[in-house]
């Protein structure tokens, strides 16, 4: 029997939007971050709590075509440290550390000179990491940039939270073998109607619920 929370998730999945639309939002955030910092690349990594891995969800710049979906253990590298300490880390001369060079090269084929990595925090949870690679070499890092990075991180965390909810909702739909997809489709359809049509649609659904409930 379908639980109420699963039904809620199904309705939410129909109403709040698809994984793709949230991915689009994350992609936009990385594009803006890259543009504002004048960086070579920017990426958002989502923590998959079930597998304890970090997953590339959005990338702007170098690697954007190949790396989406790439996973690595959440307890490795700079991103892992930032995630676990929930503290930003800004490093230059990263190439001085052969371990990072190896990590990056293995994952992306690209070794940055410098990077900024900031945790994506929502409530008490760390959802992932935002990274900005290789700002222009001539510019000196400033505390204003740190502030800006924090603002981006807040925005990204909200988007990641939505994506994570959408993932859960879609997982519920999939596990229900399509039964709940009908509910999600109804919710999405009704939400998309004009005001008077929506009113009529809701009345119809109410009558349907009464009929089915008899």
């Amino acid at each position, binding site marked *: 029997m379908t639980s109420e929370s699963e039904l809620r998730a199904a309705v939410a999945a129909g109403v709040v939007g698809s994984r793709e639309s949230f991915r689009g939002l994350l992609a936009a955030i990385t594009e803006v971050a890259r543009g504002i910092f004048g960086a070579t690349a920017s990426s958002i990594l989502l923590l998959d709590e079930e597998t304890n891995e970090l997953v590339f969800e959005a990338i702007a710049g170098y690697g954007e075509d190949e790396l989406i979906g790439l996973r690595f253990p959440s307890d490795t590298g700079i991103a892992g440290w930032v995630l*676990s300490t929930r*503290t930003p880390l800004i*490093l230059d*001369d990263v190439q001085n550390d052969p*371990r990072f060079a190896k990590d990056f090269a293995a994952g992306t084929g690209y070794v940055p000179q410098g990077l900024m990595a900031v945790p994506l925090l929502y409530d*008490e949870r760390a959802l992932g990491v935002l990274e900005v690679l290789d700002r222009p070499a001539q510019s000196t*890092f400033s505390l204003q940039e740190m502030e800006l990075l*924090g603002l981006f991180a807040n925005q990204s965390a909200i988007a990641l939270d939505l994506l994570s909810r959408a993932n859960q909702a879609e997982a519920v739909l999939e596990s229900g073998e399509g039964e709940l997809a009908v509910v999600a489709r109804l919710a999405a359809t009704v939400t998309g109607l004009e005001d008077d049509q929506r009113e009529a649609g809701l009345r119809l659904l109410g009558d349907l619920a009464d009929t089915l409930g008899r």
Partner: protein
Amino acid sequence: MTEDVLLHEAQPRSGPLPAWSLPRDAEDEIALPTEWPERVTREWAWGGATGKGVSVCILDSGVEDGHPLVGELQGAVSVSIDEDENPIVEEETAGDSCGHGTACAGIVRAIAPECDLYSVRVLGAGFTGSGSVLLAGLRYAVEQGYDLINMSLSTTKKQFATLLHDIADNAYFRRSMLVAAAHNMPVESYPWKFSSVISVGSHEQDDPMAFFYNPNPPVEFFGRGVGVEVAWPGGSKIKASGNSFATPHIAGISALILSKHPELISFQLKSVLFLTATNVAGSE
């Protein structure tokens, strides 16, 4: 001589003071040994000091022992927890899996070259469970009685706030001073927000001895935290920015002060930092 003094000499006190009060005949027992100058200057505070005799604990990801910018550690342990959340403290074998702790240790060593450095690793291989491990590690460090505990870490988990607060207060009263990094982002995290620690944010100057008192708490002091060349594992160096690196600057300066004035209690140490801050006393 007054009658009170005669009485005191005739009948010396025995036994502990009554709780939370000071009888007239006990005033001598709380005499403070430090003679304060009319004006506290940097020369008085740490002129000629090297950090000798002061123990500084780096509560972090471990420290690379023998790194050219860190030197020899006096001790190193790693802290973890078992399935029942009981702390496990073991001799360190892993060094620094990340680099963050080594960076902090190098900054302290640069400022206070003769201090005793200890590493308590609460992060490392398998970064999970960090809140409980952080708590266990901090408790262990306070029990060891280190003069200063550098915490370039914080936790956002509210469930740990009360326990951390108790440990921070306990450390403060035991003269084991926590020097804690403020979070770089506008989030709630601990223990840096507690008034019983020395909390540190970043300024952008290059002078490692420049530090500022902040009259707008909760961050109390600003230390050098931008573009700092720091020690990194493998005997290397890297340039890093953030409050994580401002914090060991203040820990190092505190080590100098305690090295010259080992009798200072926590309240006095904070007062000396305030009085010698760049925006209070300048660089005299």
